[in-house]
């Protein structure tokens, strides 16, 4: 056991030793992996010409500036005279002609020269390897006549494609391209390059050949440089050429000024190139080929690239390269002591693992992360930063990554604003539309109030207007995050659009909060409606679907229609605003009881014709008035048939319409009006006919006042506490005719004609019995007249037995 433990400890020491050793030793330089490799081949310019600042025609200032900014080779020697051979060297690592070079292993003689080969090259090449590896490539050839064009001859100007030079197109000499349309179609015009670049669809390997005017072949190197600046500079703005990007651009020349093997300027450009690097290592085109193959991850090396060293000195040792998804986070307003989280992604775009020393958030910010202590090349990790302000106001902080990248640390600035807790009202939906609804019927929708804020919401009131009512479960306070509902009920009172509002008055910003309510009342009225004690007022008041109250039915009864009663019951007080007949039915007790100080029936519309029939209208000694008309209405015709109007604290029938005089008419038939404390029937400003009307035990029986013309037949007025029948003028004309009737046992005068203050009062009697009254039988005052119908000069009325005296008519009128 002890022995085993010692062995284990020794093993651990060794592991730690090698780990420390690995961290401390310099790692050899290598070409970084890249999915964005670019090669541009220029023509026939020596190194010395390119860098010759004294020459306005050969100096290539842009190229040199890029070579200085990134890296360039000072000892790059081209292989063979003749253009095409350079393009073959960077394609298959060979001159492909045993007479021009010692054929590298694996390559063969295809008789190639500066312009063409005697046979199609079948050796391995970069295009074949790219295809085998499933990697994309394209040749961007300026002015190539068409996509996939493999022609070998150059056209003569002014042919539009005359500047395209097949001698500078390597791929068209390989069987891979000639025999495959797919591969051939990787050759496109240079105009496609900008399109692909902007679309983000550039291939992993792009081979760019400017035309003869732009590659220094037929024009000056300075012009070639200008073309580079105009067409290639934008490439360097792409993300893969930004820090930590993987872009690699090599710009070189096929040969020296005389198209001979010589030193040429070669720039190596990319974020991972050691800045300002100058390489004195002897390189040739096969080294450039090897460099690109290594970057692209191709491990089968055509021709001499198998043994050529890559240009790795440009890149130095692998390094980490951290990239943040953002360098600033803004949290906006945040309620004190609440929190909001945002994330930052850290990606290692380098080609070496990055050790993470610390991740620290400052201020009112805290962080959690899944980064661990090391982030592998190409890997990402996420840091969640939480803002929880502790005091009001702007709260700044930083998130700092300390790591092993050359820069050492990455910083994200953090900003936010601490605000006080506050409620926020959110109403859903923002408005309610109830659509069409029958008048007098109801439908309900639900409005939801949510406090999306951070403080409790105080609710002062919730109110609905118009034809809308509401009930709610909101209470007076709603906690942050809580919801409550309001049931809004639409009961249109009339047809047409019925707008309203639901208003929340509360402690949140923007109060009052208003929800617009819309709906359309649909009037369904019929000429004959019904009530029943088993009905409901939301019904249409039809015979099978009766309503519960007269008031409910009236709304659904057309003007001039009739409300009928199905069964005995009490159908409530009603205000009548249109012509209508209400019939309690002959065999029923259809009642109205009026409680409190209320009115049983009020007629409040002008120019209406109303019939009340077979109704038992009871005040139960507390209701104020049985039937009330006026004073604001005119043109009212009221029929009261076979009704009882009893026990009101006020008047049984108070018929006092406004101006219109005799256009107002009251017709009462076979009706009892009794026990009404302020009087039985009071008529003003109207014509009235009372037939078989019993008026008993009221204050007065029947009283006609200003503007009334009343006829009574077969009536009885008995036991009233004041007059039985009275005409009383206070400025207007009053006429009361009584035939075949009786006034008996009243507490005041039996018949009383009085002019109180101007005007005239005339009572005409025919066959009227006036007896047993406590006051005077026939009384007149102030010039009021009582005229007795006479036969042969004698009246026809039976006046006797009145305690206060029988009195006498003031005159007679003759029968005719």
């Amino acid at each position, binding site marked *: 056991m002890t022995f085993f433990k010692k062995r284990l400890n020794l093993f651990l020491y060794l592991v730690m030793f090698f780990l420390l050793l690995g961290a401390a030793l310099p790692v050899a330089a290598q070409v970084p992996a890249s999915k964005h490799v670019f090669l541009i081949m220029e023509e026939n310019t020596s190194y010395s010409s390119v860098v010759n600042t004294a020459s306005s025609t050969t100096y290539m200032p842009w190229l040199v500036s890029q070579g200085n900014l990134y890296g360039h080779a000072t000892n790059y020697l081209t292989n063979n005279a003749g253009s095409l051979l350079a393009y073959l060297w960077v394609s298959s690592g060979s001159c492909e002609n045993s007479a021009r070079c010692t054929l590298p292993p694996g390559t063969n003689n295809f008789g190639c020269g500066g312009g063409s080969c005697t046979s199609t090259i079948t050796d391995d090449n970069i295009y074949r390897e790219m295809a085998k590896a499933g990697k994309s490539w394209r040749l961007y050839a300026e002015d190539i006549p068409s996509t996939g064009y493999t022609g070998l001859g150059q056209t003569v100007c002014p042919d539009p494609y005359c500047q395209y030079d097949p001698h500078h197109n390597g791929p068209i000499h390989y069987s891979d391209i000639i025999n495959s349309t797919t591969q051939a179609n990787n050759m496109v015009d240079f105009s496609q390059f900008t399109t692909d670049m902007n679309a983000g669809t550039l291939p992993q390997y792009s081979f760019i050949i400017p035309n003869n005017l732009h590659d220094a072949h037929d024009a000056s190197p300075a012009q070639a440089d200008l073309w580079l600046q105009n067409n290639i500079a934008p490439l360097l703005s792409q993300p893969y050429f930004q820090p930590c990007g993987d872009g690699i651009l090599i710009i070189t020349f096929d040969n020296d000024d005389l198209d001979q093997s010589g030193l040429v300027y070669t720039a190596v450009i990319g974020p991972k190139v050691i800045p300002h690097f100058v390489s004195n290592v002897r390189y040739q085109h096969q080294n450039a080929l090897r460099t690109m193959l290594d970057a692209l991850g191709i491990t089968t090396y055509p021709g001499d690239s198998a043994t050529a060293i890559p240009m790795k000195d440009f890149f130095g040792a692998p390094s980490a390269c951290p990239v943040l998804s953002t360098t600033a986070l803004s949290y906006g307003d945040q309620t004190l002591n609440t929190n909001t989280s945002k994330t930052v992604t850290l990606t290692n775009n380098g080609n070496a693992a990055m050790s993470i020393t610390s991740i620290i958030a400052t201020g009112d910010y805290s962080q959690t992360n899944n980064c661990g202590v090391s982030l592998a090349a190409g890997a990402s990790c996420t840091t969640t930063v939480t803002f929880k302000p502790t005091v009001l106001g702007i709260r700044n902080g930083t998130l700092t990554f300390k790591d092993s990248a050359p820069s050492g640390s990455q910083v994200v600035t953090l900003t936010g604003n601490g605000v006080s807790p506050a409620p926020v009202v959110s109403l859903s939906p923002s408005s309610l539309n109830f659509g069409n609804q029958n008048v007098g019927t109801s439908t309900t929708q639900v409005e939801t109030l949510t406090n999306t804020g951070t403080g409790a919401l105080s609710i002062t009131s919730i109110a609905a207007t118009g034809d809308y009512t509401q009930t709610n479960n909101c209470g007076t306070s709603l906690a942050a995050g809580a919801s409550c509902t309001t049931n809004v009920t639409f009961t249109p009172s009339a047809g047409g659009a019925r707008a309203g509002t639901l208003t929340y008055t509360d402690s949140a910003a923007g109060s009052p909060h208003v929800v617009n309510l819309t709906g359309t009342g649909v009037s369904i009225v019929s000429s004959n409606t019904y009530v029943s*004690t088993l009905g409901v007022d939301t019904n249409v008041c039809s015979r099978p679907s009766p309503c519960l109250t007269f008031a409910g039915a009236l709304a659904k009864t057309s003007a001039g229609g009739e409300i009928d009663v199905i*069964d*005995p*019951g*009490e159908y409530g007080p009603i205000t009548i605003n249109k012509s209508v007949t209400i019939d309690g*039915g*002959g*065999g*029923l*007790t259809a*009642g109205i*009881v009026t*409680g409190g100080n209320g009115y049983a029936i009020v007629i409040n519309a002008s120019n209406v014709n109303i019939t009340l029939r*077979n109704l*038992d209208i*009871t005040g*139960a*000694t*507390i209701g104020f008035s049985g039937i009330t008309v006026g004073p604001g209405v005119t043109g009212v015709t009221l029929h009261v048939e*076979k009704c*009882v109007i*009893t*026990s009101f604290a006020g008047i049984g029938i108070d018929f006092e319409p406004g101006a219109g005089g005799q256009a107002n008419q009251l017709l009462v038939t076979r009706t*009892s009006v*009794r*026990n009404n404390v302020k009087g039985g029937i009071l008529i003003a400003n109207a014509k009235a006919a009372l037939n078989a009307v*019993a008026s*008993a*035990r009221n204050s007065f029986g029947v009283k006609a006042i200003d503007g009334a013309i009343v006829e009574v037949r*077969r009536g*009885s007025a*008995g*036991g009233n506490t004041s007059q039985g029948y009275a005409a009383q003028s206070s400025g207007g004309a009053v006429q009361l005719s009584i035939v*075949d*009737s*009786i006034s*008996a*046992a009243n507490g005041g005068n039996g018949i009383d004609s009085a002019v109180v203050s101007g005007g005239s009062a005339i009572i005409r009697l025919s*066959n009227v*019995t006036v*007896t*047993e009254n*406590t006051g005077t039988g*026939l009384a007149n005052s102030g010039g009021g007249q009582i005229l*007795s119908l006479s*036969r*042969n000069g*004698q*009246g*026809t*009325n*039976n*006046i*006797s*037995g009145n305690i206060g005296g*029988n009195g*006498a*008519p003031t005159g007679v009128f003759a029968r005719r």
Partner: protein
Amino acid sequence: MRKFHSSIKATGFILVVLTAASFAQAQTRTWVSGVGDDANPCSRTAPCKTFAGAISKTASGGEIDALDPGGFGAVNITKSITIDGGGGPVASILPGVGASAVNISTANINVTLRNIELAGVTTGATGVSVSAASGVVLHLENVAISSFTGLGVDFEPTAGGTANQLFMINTTVRNNAGGGILIANASALLDNVRSDFNGYGVKAIDGARVSVRDSDASGNTNIGFVAKGTAASAEMNIADSTSSNNGSNGIHSASAGQPTIVRVSNVTVTNNAGIGLANSGGGQLLSFSQGGQGTNNVAGNTGGDGAPTGTLPRQ
């Protein structure tokens, strides 16, 4: 399973009714029905069985209505009330043997009976019995009172004079052995009343002031209309009416020590077995006259037509 559900519903309904009852002890309008129950609150949906059961649940000044035809039992009225049987169905009261159908014994109340049949079926004692001290107002509208062994309407408050009031409209009193309508110590107005085939038709006695219009007293075994002052004066005024076919006098003014006056106008008195216009003990029977001539039609009475004791000129 279905039946079980029904039971649950029924139980729920009863609970609701009982709850309602506990909150509605005195309503302004109560209801009786032939299928009601006096344990109910007498509401429209839970009616009572009898008028007596309903009255205790009806507020003073309120109304008891009948939902359907039925016999709703004798009732002792102790508060102002309206009892309305409804115009169509027959709501009736059949008292027990020797009992009154409606008994009013409380002073200062105002009672209406409307659309009701009070049926003594030859065993009940009295149709409407008023024996209260004073201040009684009774309206009888469209009521039929028949076949009692005693009186149809016995309106005899014990005090208060004409503060007591009887109003009878469109009412029939018939076949009551003791008599049709007896009024004492009250004022009364009878309009379109028929009092037929009773012991007598209408009798006004001590303290009564009765006015009759458009009414009949026919076929009674005794007198048609009679006033009789014994302990106090009595008056009866009759207009536009008929007294016929009675077993005794048609109209009789019978003073028994107190002034008694009957006034008649446009009354037909005919075919009575006794005297048409009779008076006794100094009772006055005054005929309204037109042009010096009475206005009444008195003829064909078996015991003689009699004559008014005087006239009153019409005015």
